[in-house]
């Protein structure tokens, strides 16, 4: 029966009111000090919950490739990838806590309901102790909430909204990826250097929480530089043709266009903005500039040559030359024949970080794993020295500012790293974004 669905404390309280009799059968089935899906055999199950249909299907497929690679490496197959460069040496290539890692997969469809259904299947049917993956913040927050209730760890995939480790953070959830606040902080100095202090910005913002959050952080940091914000226009998600939002920019007097769009919206709005001549325009005696705060190399490919010279930020890029990145690109490229995306990188790291924490904790119990992860400092995973901050379960590391490459050598080579903004510049106090972690839930 529902061994993991009843939180002990809540149950005791509620039965005190309702009378003991009714809930008794469910108590009997739960083991005394167990936790949800405690692995009993020789294997431990991870749940990889990625978009396989819909707009982010390719990103999801890349995440899945990275997960498979990570599982191989944890189990001691393949060339070991970033395990060799990872600063923690707890994992020895024999699985985790002596158990071989197996995995199950599911399709989030980039919809909260579908993602939760898929995660529930992994927890209820397949016995997963950890859920990871995803390619949008709405989904990440929804699944994170679910994992908290069910008592398993959630290792977020590609989710960039502040809320994931801010307003909606949960004790059982951890994020390696950066967020809109860090994007703004990282982009600020570069924008100043490239475009000066006297600029007028025009925002086009995807009309949902992530978009607003991104718009807010860019506004905040650009206005600190002395920029003015001329307008911030909300565009419907999936508008397709953005011409009706772009033409007002033409004669508005603004000289910077900020596209707070991601995925297909980004591809379309950027393509169309370039089509309307904004990249080559002169306004106020300055070259007009377009900024895309969150870049994804996969999506940049969709915009083709339109990304040339466009600035943005990214979590990781395969052209990085540190040992960790080189090991990962080599391992991934050998297996699949092309370089990994940032989505692949963050999910690979998340799988490794979870396995490592569980190994160090000697258990898969969420509170144990979480304690091992909190405040954990590591290096060698491609982003330089990194820390999983205990206060909000957010990784703090350097952020890459990139720009569309003028002369790409291959179809994967579309971005170049302009600046690696050091961690200190993008760090913020946990209280800034609000929210409560709450206690760990071990479930069962």
């Amino acid at each position: 029966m529902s061994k993991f669905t009843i939180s002990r404390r809540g149950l005791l309280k509620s039965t005190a009111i309702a009378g003991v009799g009714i809930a008794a059968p469910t108590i009997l089935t739960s083991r005394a000090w167990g936790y949800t899906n405690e692995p009993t055999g020789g294997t431990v199950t991870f749940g990889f919950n990625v978009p396989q249909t819909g707009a982010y299907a390719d990103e999801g497929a890349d995440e899945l490739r990275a997960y498979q690679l990570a599982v191989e490496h944890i189990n001691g197959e393949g060339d070991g990838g970033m395990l060799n460069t990872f600063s923690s040496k707890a994992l020895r290539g024999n699985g985790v806590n002596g158990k071989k890692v197996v995995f199950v997969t599911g399709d989030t469809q980039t919809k909260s309901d579908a993602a939760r259904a898929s995660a529930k299947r992994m927890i209820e049917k397949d016995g997963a102790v950890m859920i990871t993956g995803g390619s949008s913040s709405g989904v990440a927050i929804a699944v994170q909430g679910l994992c908290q209730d069910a008592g398993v760890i959630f290792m977020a995939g590609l989710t960039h909204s502040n809320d994931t480790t801010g307003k909606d953070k949960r004790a059982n959830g951890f994020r390696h990826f950066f967020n809109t606040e860090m994007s703004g902080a990282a982009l600020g100095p570069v924008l100043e250097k490239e475009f000066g202090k006297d600029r007028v910005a025009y925002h086009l913002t995807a009309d949902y929480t992530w978009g607003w959050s991104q718009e807010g952080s860019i506004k905040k940091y650009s206005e600190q530089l002395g920029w003015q914000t001329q307008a911030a226009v909300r565009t419907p998600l999936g508008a397709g043709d953005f011409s009706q939002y772009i033409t007002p920019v033409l004669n508005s007097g603004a000289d910077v266009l900020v596209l707070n769009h991601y995925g297909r919206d980004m591809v379309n709005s950027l393509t169309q903005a370039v089509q309307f001549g904004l990249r080559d325009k002169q306004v106020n005696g300055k070259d007009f500039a377009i900024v895309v705060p969150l870049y994804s190399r996969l999506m940049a490919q969709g915009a083709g040559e339109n990304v040339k010279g466009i600035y943005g930020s990214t979590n990781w890029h395969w052209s990085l030359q540190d040992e960790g990145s080189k090991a990962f690109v080599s391992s991934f490229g050998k297996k699949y024949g092309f370089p990994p995306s940032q989505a692949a990188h963050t999910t690979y790291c998340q799988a490794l970080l979870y396995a490592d924490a569980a190994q160090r904790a000697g258990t898969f119990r969420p509170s144990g794993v979480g304690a091992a992860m909190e405040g954990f400092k590591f290096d060698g995973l491609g982003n330089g020295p990194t820390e999983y901050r205990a206060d909000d379960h957010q990784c703090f590391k350097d952020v890459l500012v990139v720009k569309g490459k003028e002369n790409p050598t291959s179809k994967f080579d579309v971005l170049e790293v302009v600046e690696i903004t050091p961690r200190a510049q993008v760090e913020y106090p946990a209280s800034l974004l609000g929210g409560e972690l709450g206690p760990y839930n071990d479930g069962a």
Partner: protein
Amino acid sequence: MDDILLQILNGLDKGGAYALIALGLTIIFGTLGVVNFAHGALFMLGAFCAVAVKSLLGFEKVVLDPTKLTAWGTPVEIRTPYIEAWFGDFGTQMLNFSVPVSIIIAIPVMLLVGIIMERGLIRHFYKRPHAEQILVTFGLAIVLQEIVKSQFGANPIPQPAPEIAKGMVDFGAMIGLQAGGVVYPAWRLIYFLFSLLVIGAVFSFLQFTTFGMVVRAGMADRETVGLLGIDIDRRFTIVFGIAAVVAGLAGVMYTPILSPDYHMGMDFLVLSFVVVVVGGMGSLPGAVVAGFLLGIVQSFASMNEVKAIIPGIDQIIIYLIAVVILLVRPRGLMGRKGVMEQ
């Protein structure tokens, strides 16, 4: 003033796409009485004709350079499109013009797709209830898009316009306004003119040819035309093919505006139904008028000045207009009585 003119241009451009898709859809409604949920998929297939042509033209000769290695240790591949290798500059030009070239390819391909679809599937559903037509064509749309996805992936694939059409045209100066006020991308103007051309071609085909006359008669009263001993079914096959071509052409030409992906058909499906219904079921002029009307209204609703008064109006304007029109005019702008009312 300039802003308003620009929004009108946006609306005409958008409306051109809406009108083309809705035109094909309403031809199928009007003549065959079939609710075709796969029509968006036809638009998508058209767009992928362009993708396919470009990748065929761009079929690359791969030379491995053993002196340089990729980040993962394999030799770097040097890729040159065969067409450039063989034809030099002419080849480069062909690649540059891949979207217009695709039109020539897309016409026979889409015609064939349409004919096969009608013969193989749609034909057997003329007499079936609309609900079943919806289910089968929706199923077909899913199958088509999944096939495309398995071939081309889920990511958008950029299809740039030819270099010559990439620039901006000073439309304001052309109509005697101050230069520099109303400049508009050349390709979008081309798209608008192209949609007018196709619409004109379809109308004159139906208006001035005997084939068209029979089809129009069939739209008005199918049984009578059948009684006259005219093999209307065969003509309807062609009609379906033409509808597919119109949707496909709309798709091909739209690719420089919207990088195609496998899902784009579904995104246009709902919208095209709204356009057709607002125009009135089975009315070709209605579909065209409604297409441009909704395009322009949508553009205006997105203006900051309008959004300041009613926040979020641009999110719902299309649907709002549809509701208002249907409540004021029961059968849309130009619909005929009794078509699809059961």
